[in-house]
């Protein structure tokens, strides 16, 4: 069973979002997603400063199997990206909710997070997919 922390919000496309409480959010892919993808070998992060719309393809993770798009769960501007993934993409496999984060956004509207799934909702989504 995949790990689904209670303090995060989730997109149906298997990204997680952490509210940093300072107008920014951190985005990564879920434990379920990293497990389904298999060993990651390349991560392409978005450009800092780029403005993203919710649902926009903005990053790419490539596993030994295939390339997968990462979609921005909310509207916002990219303020930071995880540069360590360039040399160590496997960090996403090892610590999907921690050191394996992918980018940070400054959000326009924190209420937008309410439109995402909570941990129970995401866990149900995974059950339905199985």
């Amino acid at each position, binding site marked *: 069973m995949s790990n689904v922390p209670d303090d995060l919000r989730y997109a149906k496309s298997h990204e997680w979002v952490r509210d940093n409480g300072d107008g920014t959010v951190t985005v990564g892919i879920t434990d379920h997603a990293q497990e389904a993808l298999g060993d990651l070998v*390349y991560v*392409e992060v978005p450009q800092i400063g780029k403005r993203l719309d919710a649902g926009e393809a903005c990053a790419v993770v*490539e596993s030994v199997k295939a390339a997968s798009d990462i979609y921005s769960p909310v509207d916002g501007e990219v303020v930071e990206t995880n540069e360590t993934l*360039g040399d160590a993409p496997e960090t996403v496999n090892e610590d999907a909710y921690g050191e394996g984060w992918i980018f940070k956004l400054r959000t326009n509207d924190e209420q937008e997070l309410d439109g995402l799934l909570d941990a129970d909702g995401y866990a149900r989504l995974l059950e339905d997919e199985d």
Partner: protein
Amino acid sequence: MGLKTALFEEHKALGARIVPFAGWDLPLHYGSQLAEHHAVRRDSGAFDVSHMRILDIAGNGALGFLRRLLANDPAKLRIAGKALYSCMLSEHGGVIDDLVLYYRGPERFRTVVNAATAGKDLAWMHSHTTGMSVALHPRTDLCMIAVQGPNAREKAAPLLPPQLAERVHALQPFFAAEEGEWFVSRTGYTGEDGLEIMCPANEGRTLWGNLMDAGITPCGLGARDTLRLEAGMNLYGQDMDEGVTPLESGLGWTVAWEPSHRSFVGRDALEAQRAAGSLRQFVGLLLTAPGVLRRHQRVLKGVAVVGEVTSGGFAPTLERSIGLARLAPGAEGECTVEIRGKPVPARIVSPPFVRNGEARITL
């Protein structure tokens, strides 16, 4: 639900991620594809390849039949156990399948063909038996386990029937030994030393368990693909198919032009193509910037498209991305590959990329 090999429950018990492949349910990996890849390069790994179709070919006309059907010449096989790699071609010279043929004795052969093409292959073979004294016998009663890696033979040999264990120690590359229903060859699809073992299904289950107990790593289709790619070995359906000839697939060396009077299926088409010249070349690619090569990406020299990637992926041994590609004649040196609309620098190289654990190209 796909077909299941005799070892399916063993894979489940080992925690395999099962995926559909050519109509079969097979392990993709047992946790980490990368770890499995490294196990084969550095020590030993075991693959269930029972989905591949084993076919026994015998009868007074067996050699004549095979010399007509295959682009390589089975008459080269004179010592029992010797193996030959060959393409089986259409009249147009397209590759119907690639296979390994083993010589077992006068007019007795065994071949192993791809799972995805097995039905098509068998129908094609049958259509060429007319008037020939030859019988084709699919051996779906056997399972097949590949044990690969620098320590594979040493670890696996003691687990074979005693009559075979000693002979396997002395086995030369690309030779097989058999005893009863056991058939063991020093062949593989990884670029490492190793064995491919065919035996009755129930004995195969015992063997698999013994291989695991001996510390051999179970490996899935994922590692099989990255290992063969590093070894520069073609994958049927990606690197070649019925739409291309062996001459444009890096397999010209497997076509036996001599003796010139041997009329094999596809010969006329290959001779015409060779005479016309301007053959596309089949090359290796090394991506020299971050990213991953994937099948169907376009290869460019300057702004001109010169071909496309036929197989691509991450090479765990090299920690770089590599690929195989079919390119216009003459293209060499530096090039770019279009990845998500952007040109990424790459270098045209000569496969293999890795053999026996060592890089064979300059990074």
